[in-house]
């Protein structure tokens, strides 16, 4: 069964992502999902992140840190 497309506004799509690089455009962090989808993420709402950290992302903003093993 394929997933129905999920609406971005809903809490449902707060997705776990891994930080790949920090210090990008305007202090955004490059992040990827487990499936390899990449996004530039605003990390202003959480403590400083470094490459390898796992974060929960909603609408391109990290709203929470996750334990590092949360994202493969």
């Amino acid at each position: 069964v394929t997933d129905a497309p999920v609406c971005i506004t809903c809490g449902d799509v707060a997705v776990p992502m891994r930080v790949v690089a920090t210090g990008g455009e305007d202090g955004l962090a490059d992040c990827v999902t487990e499936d390899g989808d990449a996004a530039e993420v605003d990390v202003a709402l959480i403590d400083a992140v470094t490459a390898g950290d796992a974060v929960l992302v909603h609408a391109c903003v990290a709203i929470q840190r996750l334990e590092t093993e949360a994202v493969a």
Partner: protein
Amino acid sequence: VKYVDEYRDAELGRALSIEIAAAVQPGRHYKIMEVCGGHTHAIYKYGIDDLLPDNVELVHGPGCPVCVIPMGRVDDGIALAREPGVIFTCFGDMLRIPGSTESLQDAKAGGADVRMVYSPLDALRIARSEPDRHVVFFAIGFETTAPSTALTLKRAKAEGIENFSVMCSHVTIVPPLKALLESPDLRLDGFVGPGHVATIVGARPFEFIPADYGKPVVISGFEPLDVLQSILMILRQIEGGEARVENQYKRVVPQEGNLRALEALAEVFVLRPHFEWRGLGFISQSALALSDAYADFDSERRFVVPGVRVADPKACQCGEVLKGVIKPWECKVFGTACTPEHAIGTCMVSPEGACAAYYNYGRFAREKVVV
């Protein structure tokens, strides 16, 4: 993936299902509302309702931000999209929401420059790259999404960007819950609380539910075992004669919320005196507008917005569905005149809408992970 696989384990699901069955009294009916559209989606995707005893009824709440936008607000958006020089940006699901005569997608087909974005930051990027045009972002969403708009506006202000504004339609979760609790036609026994809203606002805003109304609230994650465990926690509170806010989603939700996000919200937004919700009518202090410090970025102050008021279509019963008074299939047009392809009501448009969740998973391909 940790946090995903371990919360979809079929064995544990079966065990929880048995515990739930043991926790209820056979002669009693339990009506539990899941507030968030994400939970509604998970319940139907994984067939969680099939794992519950017959006397535990799940009622779907108003927590889908697309579903609660009234028609008039869509008409206002279309009016802005038609302003000369405007690039109108919004999340994908807003494109298909019906206004009184057309949707934003129709307006786009008719020549308006309407573009889908994945975040407000994407809209700001368009503004930077097209300085001769004015970019409007149609901001919707609960407290989970509002910080993203707030951070983008703070950036826009810091950069001195003048061709960007926000048509703010962010809503807040507590006032509609109060309205539902005051509603005489809906008697609820407990709430599955919205996990990602609580990640921002914390657990405290929900404390009025047990304190003033004597109903338990369990803030829940979005995986199937999260939802099952939350239901069990609610039932145990009810049977134990308790009512308090519990946090099932402790791995993500801090008790106090995200203080930086709350600071950003307080700087950028103020509460609107009232806001119209589809199906629920006007609810006081239930939505956000831009603060005076961000007046220059307020589409409603930069443009003349018609402020259209349109009654919901008569055939559509989204209001009753949003209040949990009827189930989606009880609506007269469900699955016939109203389908995800040709939606009359908002609840059928967004995948988190209760009607779309029933239609997509109930009628065709309900995926079962357990039993």
